[in-house]
């Protein structure tokens, strides 16, 4: 029989205001096995932990239950406390009477009853606990960064500077990401390329960084410290070692009708192309769907003009496998599709564009060479209307419920830049709220209004109607004047909501990293562990975790790098002893557990089993403790109940359920 101590935390008033902690102590003391029960204001405090340690020593406790906050908060604290007091740390159970109870209840009587039940379940479980001993696993001193935008580049540079090898995997032909597509950056209005390209060059030149562009992650297995990743290098059709980047092939390529991805489809590119002038690597790729040689077998001009003989039509996708200790996800974002927003006439008029398209229009390397002109007829616009929150803060299923965060600032930037360069152009911005928290952000916005005379109108645009004369009729409401307005515009720019790059979904599945309903990767703790995924060894960098601007992205990228470095700096990791184990007498050897194991931790061996005197060779499941992450998938899939999870055994779970239902 266990000797159990129960410690009920008030958590100040967090718990005690809704739960009668004295009553919980009184009821817990009556449970089987409980020899000690007390309450204290803050169990996690030094004084609280001292009380636990003292009780363990005095009452010779063999197990403890702490009724407090979520185990995610303080399970580690109390385990360490127990260990210092000489108790096996896995003899500690947490009854979550805060998040699961006091915070969500108003009625004290009901909350107290629930807290008693939760304590009872934890006591029932600890009665069946057994001491567990963690093992050790090794750390591969190499990091993988998925995504080569500013977030990925920054994380890679920081990790590499700490002395660890880093591989960047980028799916497009060049690193640089969205930032490479931007013209100027707020709030300082410096040129995006001017501050990004030095970083791209630094990453490319860094002896610890390997860049795999036009590559994708194919498969991920393993666990923190020891991931095995298959990376597919898509066939570039160019031998990167031979290519000099002279560009002759692109000039001569006769297939020039493919829409330029880099210029958001506003102009065309050749079938053999580098996405932009500063691309890294400066090695083109052949778009096999557009290439005449691949489509008809005839052409081959690029190969003929290539002095270096770098064009290789036979090149095939190549898959290589590498081991990593840590993985940084920096998959970034895209703007949402506007198919469902017919009222803005985006698909009907070339003069209705997204803000990201405007970046390309304003950029000297863009489709209009940096001249502000209507894309339909090339005419100089007289009036430009900006529409904010297109798809952001949206209550219906067409858009996103969240604020895309960057739009207020870039719209102010666009308005200001246009007014600065073309003082004759009138600029109107329709907004719901202008949100400018950030260093020098509000000053920036006010400059747009006060110094540059941008006309901000609080209200939403209801309809943009293309007119026969080529102009656009904008119908909107002015909420401050409470009136409907109609105005003629020559261009309309939509501040389109951003969403995580769609590639993140399958990637999250491969990583077993959780994502939220908007496909943003979830952090381990929204406040205290914002750059770590709940899956150990996976770190989050940039917009894949949530909307953010460049300074925030760079800061988070650095933070993710530090977390990765902290992991890579360790020689050994302590493994979780809560792993699965097969009962050899019950195991059927049916392979169901191995089929469902996401970590490949289960194999089979034929073993001589003595089943109550009957000796026979049986096919038995064997769990590799280093690979098992204790997810429990096998335990529920096992038809005979042979598979059990140490620390969360079937009996323990049933005992908890029984205690709750009693």
């Amino acid at each position, binding site marked *: 029989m266990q000797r159990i101590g129960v410690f009920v935390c008030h958590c100040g008033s967090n718990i005690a205001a809704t739960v009668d902690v004295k009553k919980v102590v009184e009821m817990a003391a009556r449970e089987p096995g409980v020899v000690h029960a007390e309450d204290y204001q803050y169990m996690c405090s030094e004084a609280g932990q001292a009380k636990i340690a003292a009780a363990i020593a005095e009452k010779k406790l063999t197990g403890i239950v702490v009724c407090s906050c979520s185990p995610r908060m303080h399970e580690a604290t109390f385990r360490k406390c127990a260990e210092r007091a000489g108790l096996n740390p896995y003899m500690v159970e947490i009854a979550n009477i805060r998040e699961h109870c006091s915070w969500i209840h108003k009625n004290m009587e009901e909350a107290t009853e629930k807290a008693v039940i939760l304590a009872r379940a934890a006591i029932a479980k600890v009665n069946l606990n057994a001491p567990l001993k963690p093992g050790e696993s090794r750390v591969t001193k190499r990091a993988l960064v998925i995504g080569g935008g500013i977030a990925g580049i920054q994380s890679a540079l920081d990790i590499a500077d700490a002395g660890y090898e880093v591989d960047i995997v980028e799916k497009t032909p060049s690193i640089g990401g969205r930032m490479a597509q931007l013209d100027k950056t707020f709030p300082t209005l410096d040129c995006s390329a001017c501050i990004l390209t030095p970083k791209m060059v630094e990453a490319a030149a860094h002896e610890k960084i390997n860049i795999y562009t036009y590559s994708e992650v194919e498969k991920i297995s393993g666990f923190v410290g020891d991931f095995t990743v298959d990376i597919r290098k898509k066939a570039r059709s160019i031998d990167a070692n031979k290519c000099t980047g002279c560009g002759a092939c692109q000039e001569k390529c006769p297939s020039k009708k493919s829409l330029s991805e880099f210029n958001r489809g506003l102009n065309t590119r050749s079938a053999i192309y580098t996405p932009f002038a500063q691309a890294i690597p400066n090695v083109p790729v052949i778009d096999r769907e557009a290439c005449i040689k691949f489509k008809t077998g005839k052409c081959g001009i690029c190969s003929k003009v290539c002095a270096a003989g770098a064009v290789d039509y036979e090149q095939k996708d190549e898959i290589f496998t590498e081991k990593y200790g840590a993985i940084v996800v920096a998959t970034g974002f895209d703007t949402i599709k506007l198919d469902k927003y017919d009222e803005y006439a985006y698909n009907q008029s070339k003069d209705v564009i997204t803000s990201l398209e405007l970046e390309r229009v304003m950029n000297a390397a863009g489709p209009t060479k940096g001249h502000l002109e209507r894309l339909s007829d090339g005419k100089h616009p007289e009036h430009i209307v900006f529409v904010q929150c297109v798809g952001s803060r949206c209550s219906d299923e067409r858009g996103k419920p969240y604020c895309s965060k960057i739009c207020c600032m870039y719209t102010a930037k666009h308005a200001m830049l246009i007014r600065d360069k073309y003082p004759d152009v009138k600029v109107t911005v329709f907004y719901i709220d202008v949100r400018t928290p950030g260093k020098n952000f509000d000053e920036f916005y006010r400059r747009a209004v006060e110094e540059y005379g941008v006309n901000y109108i609080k209200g939403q645009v209801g309809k943009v109607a293309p007119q026969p004369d080529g102009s656009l009729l904008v119908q909107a409401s002015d909420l401050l004047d409470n009136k409907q307005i109609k105005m003629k515009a020559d261009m309309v720019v939509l501040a389109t909501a951003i969403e995580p790059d769609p590639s993140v979904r399958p990637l999250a*599945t491969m990583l077993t990293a959780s994502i939220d309903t908007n496909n943003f990767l979830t952090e381990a703790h929204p406040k205290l562990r914002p750059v770590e995924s709940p899956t150990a060894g996976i770190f989050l960098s940039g917009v894949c975790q949530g909307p953010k601007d460049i300074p925030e992205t760079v800061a988070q990228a650095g933070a993710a790098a530090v977390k990765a470095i902290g992991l890579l700096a360790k020689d050994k990791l302590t493994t979780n002893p809560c792993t699965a184990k097969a009962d050899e007498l*019950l195991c059927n*050897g*049916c*392979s*169901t557990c191995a*089929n469902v194991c996401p970590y490949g931790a289960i194999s089979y061996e034929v073993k001589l089993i003595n*089943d109550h005197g009957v000796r026979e060779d049986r096919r038995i499941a064997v769990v590799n403790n280093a690979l098992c992450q204790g997810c429990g998938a096998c335990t529920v899939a096992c038809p*005979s109940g042979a598979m059990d999870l140490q620390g969360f055994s079937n009996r323990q779970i049933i005992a908890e359920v029984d205690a709750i239902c009693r």
Partner: protein
Amino acid sequence: MQELINRAKELLADGTVVRVLGWRKGDMDYNPEVAYFNSAEELDNFVYDGFCGANLSKYMIEASKLEGKTLVFLKPCDTYSFNQLLCEHRVDRDKAYIIGVGCRGKLDIEKVKAQGISGITAVSGTELDGPDSIKVSTIYGDFDVAYTDAMLERCHVCKGKEHKIYDELIGESKDTHDMDRMAAVAAIEAMSPTEKFAYFQAELSKCIRCNACRNVCPACSCRKCVFDSTKFDSQQKANVDSFEEKMFHIIRAFHVAGRCTDCGECSRVCPQGIPLHLFNRKFIKDIDELYGKYQAGETADQRAPLVNFTFGDAEPSIVNERGSK
């Protein structure tokens, strides 16, 4: 039938197999039993007729542990069970010599009795190449019953006349499918929760926990059943709930979900006539609807949807949505 006996004798004689797994004459014409035959002489009692419904696949688990090969006769639907057991590494393909036997549907004596026929002394005409109606002799006289009218429910939803695994084939098979397999499940799905509960309470309360369904089920092949193990607290739960039978049958249905080939043995052997196969069919229907058509035992190397993962799998939200329909 004689062809089967002759072939079995040959295989025994040339040493291909050391025993034969088949059916032996019972005390009545309608209750032949599963039996091993170790010699040519023993085979004189071998029988194969319309009442040989028993699925021999599960017996191959034990036969796989014996020395030498076993000749086993499998009907088309039995081969699915054999494949499923191969999937689960429960039988040894190298220990089995499979003769795929022809089948024109199997008979259910209860169906005959349900026509008001009692005092049965003999039944004839049930052989594979027999006539379209069987002859039932009773103490009150003889009756003719159409073969299809005496068929087991499972044969009316026959999976097909094709054997999925075999070494050789003897006898013509017939696809006897003439009813919608999921009609009864759909009818239960359409009930309100209260009606469903009442229906299952009425059916399952007939259960006497004889364990026949579990013992005959090829998917219920655990070395130690959870209901027999002291490791789980499932035993003493029996006397705390007046409707305890539901636990047994629902847990059993969950345990065989995705593995059940719908061989129908559970319902065939139930002495209380409970339509146990409907539980399993509900799972099959759900799996088909959520993950695409899947037939357990179709091949010996497939991954069942419930123990597999693909990017095309239905999302949990979709599962809930469809489940609530």
